């Protein structure tokens, strides 16, 4: 059966890359109530989460084969 960690890992990795890129390209783009580069930090967190899911999926498929 499809390992859910694979598609969701890919999704969050992609989302992370996209947000980190936005955070780097437009560092001045922030919400009205904060000066933080929200896209950059949240993007990094998503990237880590996505890669973590991919790693788990890879480990599981190795164990099986």
């Amino acid at each position: 059966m499809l390992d859910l960690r694979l598609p969701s890992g890919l999704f969050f990795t992609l989302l992370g890359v996209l947000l980190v890129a936005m955070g780097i390209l437009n560092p001045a783009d922030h919400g009205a109530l904060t000066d933080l580069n929200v896209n950059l930090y949240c993007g990094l967190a998503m990237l880590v989460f996505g890669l973590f899911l991919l790693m788990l999926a890879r480990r599981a498929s190795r164990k099986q084969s």
Partner: protein
Amino acid sequence: MKLAFVDYFILALYFLLVLGIGWLLRKKISTSGDFLTAGHSVPVWITSLAFLAANLGAQELVGMSGNGAKYGIMTAHFYWVGAVPAMIFVGLFMMPFYYGSRARSVPEYLKLRFDEKTRTLNALAFAVMTIFSSGISMYALGLLMRLVLGWSFETSVLVSAAIVLAYTFLGGLTSAIYNEVLQFFLIVVGFSPLAALAVWKAGGWSGMASRVPAVMTHSWKYMGSAHQNPMGIEVFGMVAGLGFVLSFGYWCTDFLVIQRAMAANSMSAARRTPVLAALPKMMMPFIVIVPGIAALALSKMAVGYDLPMKNGGPDYDQVLTTLMGKFYPSGMLGVGLTGLMASFMSGMAGNVTAFNTVFTYDIYQSHIRPNAPDSHYLMVGRLTTVGGVLLSVGAAYMAASYNTINDLLQLVFSFVNAPLFATFLLGMFWRRTTGHGAFFGLLSGTLAAAATHGLTLAEGKGAWIANLHEFPSPMAQNFYIAMSAWTVCFLTTIGVSMLSEPRPERELTGLVYGLTEHKHDEGVVWYKRPAPLAVLVGVLAIILNLWFA
């Protein structure tokens, strides 16, 4: 709120992902069991997150953050008292009978334990209610998207319905469950940064506490009498009404959530599902309620945030989306919005997948056409999925055109649901309970709920028979209606059972406590056993209650 291209791109990416998952899962479906019950093959971490996420609809996100701004941390009672204990109970004590009986649905358990009429009563009520709750949730989505983004009601409702239909039709329950897990991830990823940013801006917990009334930062301190707190409820009403009757009635008997645990790949996994789900459940207040309190604090700080208004009063339903607009740039805004859309859609998918199972097995197979080959029921299951989505869209439009019908339906549903837990409790733990007892208990409990509503008043609602008592809030009225329904159902079930013929005990093996062999999972590490996990979860919930008391 204005969305940029990248926000639409993220939303589109998510739509592609859910459709792709449905497409990949389609090959797995060869029997009606694969489609409707996920073939009892889903790993426990997935069933646990789906168990939680099936209940975590967007209405809850939007509503609970609004309640945070309105009532404060007292709202967490809906989690720490009104959910966690019931989730532990259903996992430890009730799942052995649901999963062990080999029933395919909660109504089917009632058929095995009691009789056909009790099952049919429960199945019909459940089928009608799931369609309407799915429709009402779609209606809420259409309203919110129109208000926040200016999208047309038609677009939001029809696009989300089409996507839900596509992925549930292709992959059945497995597809719905997978997407619920994704939705849960998106909500955590999309909304926990918002909570952190809002709390930080409001000066942390102590900064918030210094700016909002003291009653909003204590969950128990002002519960001594109903007039001390804005919810208008006191300790007994809250613990008995919400913590016992309503919470156990929902978490222990509602097929929408139970179905997720029944999809697990072993008895132990099915029992751990609700217990493990309780861990993230008790953390949800930090993501949904605390930002609401922060919003109220921010509105008093002259930093450029005001509570959204409607008709001269605060519009609490918009607290979450206005916070997003103030803290998120394009990009994260798209992620937050996608999380909101995802929870609307998986709420709908959850209802549709529970509806098609109950319709196919408990109504069609038992009353319309029994003894057909399995492929026939698979086809009926798929067609019911289409029918369920179409009916939900119809219900959404009905809710949009007749607001009063909407309120009336929700009231009737609460009457039907209130007595349920008494029936299941007696059925599972008292072998003398009979089918007649269960059936008439349920009917009398529902009547008792309606009568209590007709005899009491809260904010001008109710008392259509006579006005004997006035409650300080509709919430208090609701809790006491539930208690009276439960008590009447409990006593009637016992009374009628004593008067009717008991079932021979050999027929009840596997269905009732005391007549069921329990396999103990000794020799398994503690974190894979339900009981030690339940103790851990229970202790954590007590600590949270004390911490924010």
